[in-house]
């Protein structure tokens, strides 16, 4: 029996490369899984389009081109006019940090300030008692590479790679771990401190039982409205096996076993479409 996730076969179906046995498995799974069936239906038109000789030729030509090396990409980036604007802004930011932080701190450390409101209205979900102590350098949690050792899912209630939420719109997040595990869910907006979304006042432990989907906020517990300021948010799910302690002050102890998934969304002013 294969440990294949049928959803992972979808891309191979659309673009090609599935064996007959794999196709059989995918289609049999779709017959009993409505979500998979709907996605398969969505992919079918794309597949038929890509199969057209004129479209195939364009795509194959693009695929034969060599991707630029990272040095070429950096060089190209520096040649962009935007770089000048960005470097100016970065310099201004650096000066602002030096002016604002250094007089009151000997070191440049950033800690989670529980009194500070997160950029989305999570106050009804968060509660100080359930907050883990984030490490002084919490950004290291966002620097850990994305990886998936365990079957876990993280979703938000809007489609798209970077869905857009207008301020005031409802947000719901869901997570599940196929075989259960200890989880931490953080939301970070560019330039702001992260908010811990899970555990929270409704789920006070990190443990998520096998196969159970945890919703934030939980069903029947009201809505979660997106608040300003506008900007890009990253929602990061960190999962470790149930017998591993997710000690956030010592990521090195569990990082190798962690499954890390990330989604992002953008908050725009209520008037934007």
């Amino acid at each position, binding site marked *: 029996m*294969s440990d294949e996730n049928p959803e992972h076969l979808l*891309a191979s179906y659309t673009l*090609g*490369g599935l064996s007959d046995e794999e196709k059989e498995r995918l289609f049999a799974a779709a*017959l009993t899984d409505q979500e998979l*069936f709907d996605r398969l239906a969505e992919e079918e038109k794309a597949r038929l389009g*890509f199969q057209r000789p004129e479209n195939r030729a364009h795509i*194959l030509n693009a*695929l034969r081109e060599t991707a630029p090396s990272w040095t070429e990409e950096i060089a190209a980036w520096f040649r962009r006019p935007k770089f000048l604007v960005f470097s100016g802004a970065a310099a201004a930011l650096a000066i602002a940090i030096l002016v604002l932080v250094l007089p009151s701190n000997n070191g440049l450390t950033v800690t989670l300030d529980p009194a500070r409101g997160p950029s989305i209205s999570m106050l009804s979900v968060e509660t100080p008692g359930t907050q883990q102590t984030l490490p002084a350098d919490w950004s290291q949690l966002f620097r850990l590479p994305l990886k998936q050792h365990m079957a876990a899912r993280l979703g938000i209630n809007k489609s798209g790679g970077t869905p857009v939420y207008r301020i005031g719109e409802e947000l719901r997040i869901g997570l599940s771990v196929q075989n259960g595990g200890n989880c931490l869910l953080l939301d970070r907006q560019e330039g702001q401190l992260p908010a811990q979304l899970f555990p929270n006042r409704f789920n006070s432990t990190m443990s998520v039982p096998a196969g159970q989907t945890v919703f934030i906020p939980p069903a029947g517990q009201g809505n979660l409205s997106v608040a300003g300021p506008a900007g890009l948010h990253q929602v990061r799910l960190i999962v470790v096996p149930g017998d591993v302690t997710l000690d956030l002050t010592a990521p090195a102890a569990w990082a190798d076993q962690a499954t890390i998934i990330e989604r992002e969304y953008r908050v725009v002013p209520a008037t934007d479409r």
Partner: protein
Amino acid sequence: MEKNEIFALLRERIVGYGRSLVRGGLIRSEDIEDLAQESIVVLERKYAHVTALEELVRLGIRISQLKAKDLAGRKERRAERTGVSVDDSDLTDIGLRPDELLEAKERTARMVAAIRQLGQECREIVRLQFLGVATDDALKRLRYNKAADLHRKRHRCYERLRRLMGEPGEVRL
């Protein structure tokens, strides 16, 4: 799986798919049963020779999509009181319709632009897929040990490609 069993499950899935089309505003909720029933009837009558599960599901999907377009057209025609209908004989050809061909052409242009933003590994993975290189051969060429790992990587590359194309990624709770 027996053909009748496949049809029964397929009908259930088309009903579910119909609900998503209702949410998308393409058809009306009272059309869902017609969509499922008519799709299965076309499948039974026009494609009686087909027995493979994969083909039946693929045909079921495509027929229901074309039927949905027909139902959506009927909805508009009702509004316009023209009373034109589409014959089921059209459904012996499940290829893309002119509007879908245009859509595919535009999608291809977006895909080409997206490919140019992909890294080399993803490009190679997608290229082998496009050339129809089977999983076993792709495993050797890309030096992956397990098919599941390769499919996961293909999935990630495709999701990235879709994001770069500005299309919805995998988003479900």
